[in-house]
């Protein structure tokens, strides 16, 4: 069962990236339970969690959102590799926040990046996955948290 404080750590790790890097805060939409496979965007950062808790956290964002974020960072390379790099950095920040807040009882992986592929989100019986919309400017990304 996912605790509210745990969810907060992942959400703050995400919104903090936008607020600090782009100097424009992101807002969160109402979380909802995932049913079936979630619709992911073009670029997805993945963090695996094991140890005291097991599961996975995804940050998935559309190319248009990442492009504007890169512009706000004064970046002028908008290649596929740079998009992957950026979504990996967001996931890296989420991972770093989780390590700080959860301590060493949680083993948190180095983030990996998917682009285009539909990620496999395995759900064990009784496990629930939450989807939290992350809204920034006119764009919307998703944070998907699935923990036992």
């Amino acid at each position, binding site marked *: 069962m996912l605790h509210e404080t745990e969810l907060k750590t992942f959400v703050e790790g995400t919104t*903090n*990236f936008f607020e*600090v*890097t782009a*100097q424009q805060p992101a807002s969160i939409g109402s979380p909802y339970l995932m049913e079936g496979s979630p619709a992911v965007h073009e670029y997805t950062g993945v963090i695996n969690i094991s140890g005291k808790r097991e599961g996975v956290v995804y940050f998935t964002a559309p190319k248009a959102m990442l492009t504007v974020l*890169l512009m706000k*960072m*004064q*970046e002028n*390379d908008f290649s596929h*590799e*740079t998009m992957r*790099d*950026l979504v*990996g*950095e967001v996931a*890296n*920040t989420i*991972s*770093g*926040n989780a*390590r*700080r807040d959860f*301590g*060493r009882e949680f083993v948190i992986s*180095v983030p990996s990046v998917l682009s285009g592929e539909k990620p496999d989100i395995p759900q064990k019986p009784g496990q629930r996955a939450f989807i939290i919309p992350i809204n920034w400017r006119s764009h919307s990304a998703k944070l998907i948290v699935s923990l036992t």
Partner: protein
Amino acid sequence: MGSNGTTMAANGRRYIKLMIVDDSNIMRRRIERSQQFEELQLVGTAGNGLEALELFKKTDPDVVTMDLTMPRMDGIECIGRLVAMKPAVRILVISALADKATAVEAMERGANGFLNKPFTDRQLNEAIADLMR
């Protein structure tokens, strides 16, 4: 930073050689673009610890910004190797790993400062200024 940590250019001006180590191209460019110190001269960038060791031998930097989570050789091990080669090198860790244990470990290996990602331009420049004092 005293005169021992600087290099004299042909024009007689002293400058400080900077090396940036991060597996993210975006972050390497961001650090290069955002640092505002005229005396800092970028001598190269590396995407992992092994590349950093090679570049370090070739360019002998005075100041290094170092990511921690990298492929092939992580930042913690790289810091120890760089300090063994040049004890006077000043190393600023720039990492998303925000837990105290990681910061302590980096400092024990020889890092001189720690800046968490994400960071603002101001935070970066304050951290570099602290490093060069």
